[in-house]
């Protein structure tokens, strides 16, 4: 049975629709992240799921029981909520606050049993707040207070845990600490958490629900949901999506500038390798030129950058030499290009055929860096080709900025970089 089942939930404030046809389910032990822009209804969804506001339509089931059929006490035995940030005005102690988590289990005429005290002691140890037990809760730090609220939620022994940006106001170490506690200690609990930080959600969640404009825009594993297209569609910004080196989860970096909507510019091909081309790739990406790159080896860091930016590229397996088919594709792409940018890089026998191909088009080639910066592992052939390139009309540019200016200059004849002047200078 599913721990949580949300069926076609609609929420309205008066005539104003906040959520529309929200439907998803969560299994025990699973952690779901709710992401979405401000005003997309994330917090409202949690409120509707914890009976703070009544939905206009739809139902919420917890372990097969419909929420409205449960009493407040019974609901609190099944579902715990950790709020965003709470100001507690009355100076209850930490242990008194945690004991409030046992409230739904204690009868009207009863007081706390030994078992209740044992549970509170245990959860305070788990949340690492035992040493604060007798402190007034309004005299501890924000991170400590949030851990106290986690302990209180643990004391409720819930099947379902709802977190409303429970870590947003904390520093990064406390965010990680608290989410790790939850993942570790709530193995059988279904957790639904609102996140502002998509990277944090990606790291801790099994699945992500992406809300936009009242509805679910996408739902699935972090890899399925955190894509450049979906983020652009929902948040309206351009991001670079990469894979986190230690967790393997996707993470995003904002590009901070939007690429041109239309691909109005000319066609530019970049030949690079190592990590020499990454910065240039990023800058060119914003200009609106039609870009292509290669031939690059898979896992080369320039390869990763080009892939993350969505630039079409020709690739070879890691450490494999450039094959004949790649070479002929490269020839075709170079033929179609208005401009070829060759980035200074180490050249060995494996990638020498990149240079050989470029040598046919010296007039439309720009070299980033001087030819002396190329490391030649080909006993002189690379150096010779580069020399010929310069003689045939190829130009050297000392920095990416200079390449960009060069691009603008060529503009007038072939490649049309939009807004060239101001836009490109902003990049420096």
């Amino acid at each position: 049975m599913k721990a949580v089942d949300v069926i076609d939930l609609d929420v309205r404030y008066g005539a104003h629709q906040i959520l529309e046809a929200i439907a998803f389910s969560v299994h025990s032990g699973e952690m779901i992240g709710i992401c979405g822009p401000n005003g997309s209804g994330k917090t409202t969804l949690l409120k509707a799921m914890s009976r703070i506001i009544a939905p206009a339509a739809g139902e919420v089931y917890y372990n097969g029981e419909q929420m409205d059929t449960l009493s407040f006490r019974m609901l609190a035995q099944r579902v715990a909520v950790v709020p965003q940030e709470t100001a507690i005005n009355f100076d209850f102690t930490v242990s008194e606050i945690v004991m409030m988590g046992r409230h739904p289990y204690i009868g009207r005429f009863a007081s706390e049993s030994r078992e209740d005290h044992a549970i509170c002691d245990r959860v305070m140890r788990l949340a690492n707040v035992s040493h604060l037990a007798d402190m007034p809760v309004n005299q501890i730090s924000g991170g400590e207070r949030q851990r106290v609220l986690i302990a209180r939620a643990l004391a409720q022994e819930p099947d379902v845990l709802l977190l409303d940006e429970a870590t947003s106001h904390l520093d990064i170490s406390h965010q990680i600490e608290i989410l790790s506690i939850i993942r570790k200690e709530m193995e059988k609990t279904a957790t639904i958490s609102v996140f502002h930080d998509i990277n944090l959600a990606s790291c801790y969640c099994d699945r992500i629900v992406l809300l936009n404009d009242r509805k679910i825009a996408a739902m699935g594993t972090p890899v399925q949901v955190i894509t450049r297209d979906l983020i652009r569609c929902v948040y309206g910004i351009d991001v670079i999506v990469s894979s986190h080196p230690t967790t393997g989860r996707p993470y995003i970096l904002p590009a901070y500038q939007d690429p041109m909507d239309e691909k109005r510019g000319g066609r530019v091909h970049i030949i690079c390798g190592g990590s020499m081309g990454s910065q240039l790739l990023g800058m060119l990406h914003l200009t609106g030129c039609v870009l292509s790159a290669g031939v690059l080896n898979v896992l080369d860091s320039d390869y990763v950058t080009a892939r993350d930016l969505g630039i079409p590229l020709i690739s070879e397996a890691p450490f494999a030499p450039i094959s004949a088919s790649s070479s002929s594709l490269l020839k075709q792409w170079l033929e179609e290009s208005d401009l070829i940018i060759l980035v200074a890089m180490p050249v060995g026998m494996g990638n020498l055929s990149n240079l050989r191909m470029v040598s046919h088009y010296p007039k439309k080639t720009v070299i980033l860096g001087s030819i002396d910066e190329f490391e030649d592992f080909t006993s002189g052939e690379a150096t010779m080709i580069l020399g010929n390139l310069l003689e045939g009309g190829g130009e050297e540019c000392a920095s990416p900025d200079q390449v960009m200016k060069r691009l603008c200059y060529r503009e007038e004849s072939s490649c049309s970089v939009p807004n060239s002047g101001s836009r490109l200078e902003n990049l420096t």
Partner: protein
Amino acid sequence: MRYRGPATIFLLLVALSLSMLIAVATGPTSVPFASIFQDATAHQIIFDIRLPRVIAAVLVGAALATAGTAMQALFKNPMADPYIIGTSAGGSLGAVASIVFLAGFGLPVFAFTGAVGATFLVYTIARRGGKIPVETLLLTGVALSMFLSAMLSFLMYTSGKSLHQIVFWLMGGFWTVSWDQVWVALVIPVGCLLIYLFARDINIISLGDDEAVHLGVNVEQLKILLLFASAVLAGIAVSIAGAIGFIGLITPHLMRNIVGPDHRVLFPAAILAGALILLWADTFTRTLGNEMPVGIITAFLGAPFFMYLLRRRSAV
């Protein structure tokens, strides 16, 4: 422990018991202990005049303290007391209407009805879609209090000869108390006990309404219970002794400083303290105060003390 709950309650209990004995024993007429059971007049003074008055003062003090504590938790506002939501103004209007139109006939009933009726009116106006937002309730109470005060002023303006009686009644006092009122006042312990049963829920609701829902408290039901139990307690208090201010406001503050915010300890402590304060205020007016209205004494001593508490708290 930061707070000394049980010890404070024990001390207050002892102090209250002793004070009741002393209060019964003192008065304008001195009654030798030996004469109580021999002299009929002495017996009458002790058992028909002083004892009901002492018991009434104790119960009214307890009622006001309980209602004040409950209101402060419900409104999450330390300025709240049973009078803030119009209970006092309603009770006063009922009493004054009885004095003006019926020459004081059925005054306690009118006062009680006015107090509870005003609370019900505030509740009905503030209610929106099955919920009572606390801010709306508070503001509605303040507005209704002003409206009722205006009606009260109008009645006083047109009252003619009975103005003196009205003013005297409004200041609050126990000089008319007999056993009849004490029997009615026995509802007070029942009301206090009912509220006390929800002490744990009240602790939780003081954190905030949403959090209380998350912890399994039926918040809207609890609000109704607190509102009407407090209104009944304050209504009975008003019907017996008129509008006595400051007990409901000060005792919860005073006791929260000593025993802490846990209502399971705070309620008994506030009840005992409220009873003790009102008993001594009444004993003072009975013996040395020339029967001036006790409301004058509670306000005269209470307001400066309250300011002292505020100063001390903001200094922390």
